[in-house]
């Protein structure tokens, strides 16, 4: 098992895919935080308004999901999955190693994105003379939440990728779900939508990726959000592993 894990970690380090995703994440966080930071009306620069800006580090969860998905759909696309499964025919071992390596990368994505959002957001608001309303525990929740959410969305992406197998629909589906579908639902059906995986990630960090933080009913408590998201990750992985074990390698 250690050999399989080392192989997966080496795969991450020896192409530019992870680096490009990481760079894309940081660029997007910069863009959004600067845009919202400079546009935030001083009358709305209260605690929750500032949490919304600083919470954009939650984008780390989306990019962790994309990385988790690409780790399997990329191999299915270029065919590397064949030598991979020839070397390790117990396919669940390969997916377990991908799970660990994607979660590790997710940790880094979530931490970097959240630290960047907080640093850039603080600098932007300070430059405009807006006093920062966040306390130490807010920062702790944002960073810890961003890290946990990203680490748990990585296996969601991996599980979805292993189930759908086709790279383009997988990536589009993950983006559309997190950025669009859940955003609509949290506005229209908050009582249901707060149990969805994107809202669970938002609950952990205390800020949604997009849109308003719902108040009626509010997001779940962070611990419940983390447990729920872990449940989604487990279900996605179980389906992905079962599909990979059962189907022929293309």
């Amino acid at each position, binding site marked *: 098992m250690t050999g399989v894990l080392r*192989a997966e970690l080496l795969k991450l380090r020896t*192409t530019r895919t992870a680096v490009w995703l990481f760079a894309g994440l940081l660029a997007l966080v910069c863009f959004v935080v600067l845009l919202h930071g400079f546009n935030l009306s001083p009358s709305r620069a209260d605690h929750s308004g500032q949490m919304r800006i600083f919470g954009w580090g939650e984008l780390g969860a989306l990019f962790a999901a994309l990385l988790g998905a690409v780790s399997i759909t990329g191999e299915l696309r270029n065919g590397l999955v064949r030598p991979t499964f020839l*070397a390790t025919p117990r396919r669940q071992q390969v997916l377990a190693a991908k799970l660990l390596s994607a979660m590790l990368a997710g940790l880094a994505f979530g931490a970097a994105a959240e630290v960047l959002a907080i640093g850039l957001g603080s600098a932007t608001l300070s430059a405009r003379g807006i006093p920062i309303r966040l306390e130490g525990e807010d920062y702790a929740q944002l960073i810890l939440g961003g890290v946990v959410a990203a680490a748990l969305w990585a296996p969601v992406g991996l599980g979805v990728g292993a189930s759908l197998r086709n790279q383009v629909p997988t990536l589009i589906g993950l983006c559309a779900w997190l950025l669009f579908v859940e955003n609509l639902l949290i506005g229209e059906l908050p009582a249901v939508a707060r149990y969805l995986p994107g809202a669970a990630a938002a609950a952990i960090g205390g800020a949604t990726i997009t849109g308003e933080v719902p108040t009626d009913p509010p997001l779940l408590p962070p611990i419940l959000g983390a447990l729920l998201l872990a449940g989604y990750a487990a279900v996605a992985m179980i389906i992905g592993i079962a599909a990979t074990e059962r189907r022929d390698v293309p």
Partner: protein
Amino acid sequence: MRRSMRADETAARSSGNPVSLDGPARDPAVARTTSAADVVHVASLSKRYGEVVAADDVSFALPAGSVTGLLGPNGAGKTTVLRVLLGLAEPHKGEALILGRRYRDLDRPMHVVGAVLESGDFDPGRNGRDHLRVLAFAADVPQRRVDEALAVVGLARAAKRAVRTYSLGMRQRLTLAAALLGSPQLLVLDEPANGLDAKGVHWLRTFLRGFAADGGTVLVSSHVLAEIAQTVDHVVIVDRGHVVARSSLAELVADGKTLEEVYLALTSEDAA
């Protein structure tokens, strides 16, 4: 290369020709052709893809130390048989065993089987050496084998280049290097000469003969007869999913016909 098969190889060769010309359906001798010396044992293997029957009741066995050509027109089922043998596809019926076990049940399979698939399976952005390092970790092979395998296939100088810059022939050599990482006793190659130039084909032929001379067993699929006739000592000819001939090369061409004449008589003209 492992030489542990040598004794078995000698036994197999001295026990007479283990492959027969009979079709599989009327061949009660599958059991006879299957002995402890058989490195590969394919019995009544059938595989469908939807309505298409890719392999139907395919049986053959490979004795240790033999070089067997799996011949047939495009679409005859060669790749399907190899995919099932390598655990990438599940058969609907029958079985394909390597040293008595399914590929997916082998412990550290790359130490037993080296596979060269024709599809060129790399991440184009990774360099050749890193590709092998990844597989060496996964296959539980010492990392020093990476540079050894690169040297064997003549890729040492290109090792640090991204695979996307490789020619088709270089990719084939890299796939072969991956197959050799675990010093296997069996090589399974699907159309390995595709993309190789004349020198490359000659090199491959010499390599395979040497591999077999050292006690290794080779199963090589091809639709290019000229390259096969000079490399193999046994042939299995498939057509439209069926085995139509199974024999030593010498026996197949015994009555003065060429391999090409026999092959054309046995296989259909239409592409499947």
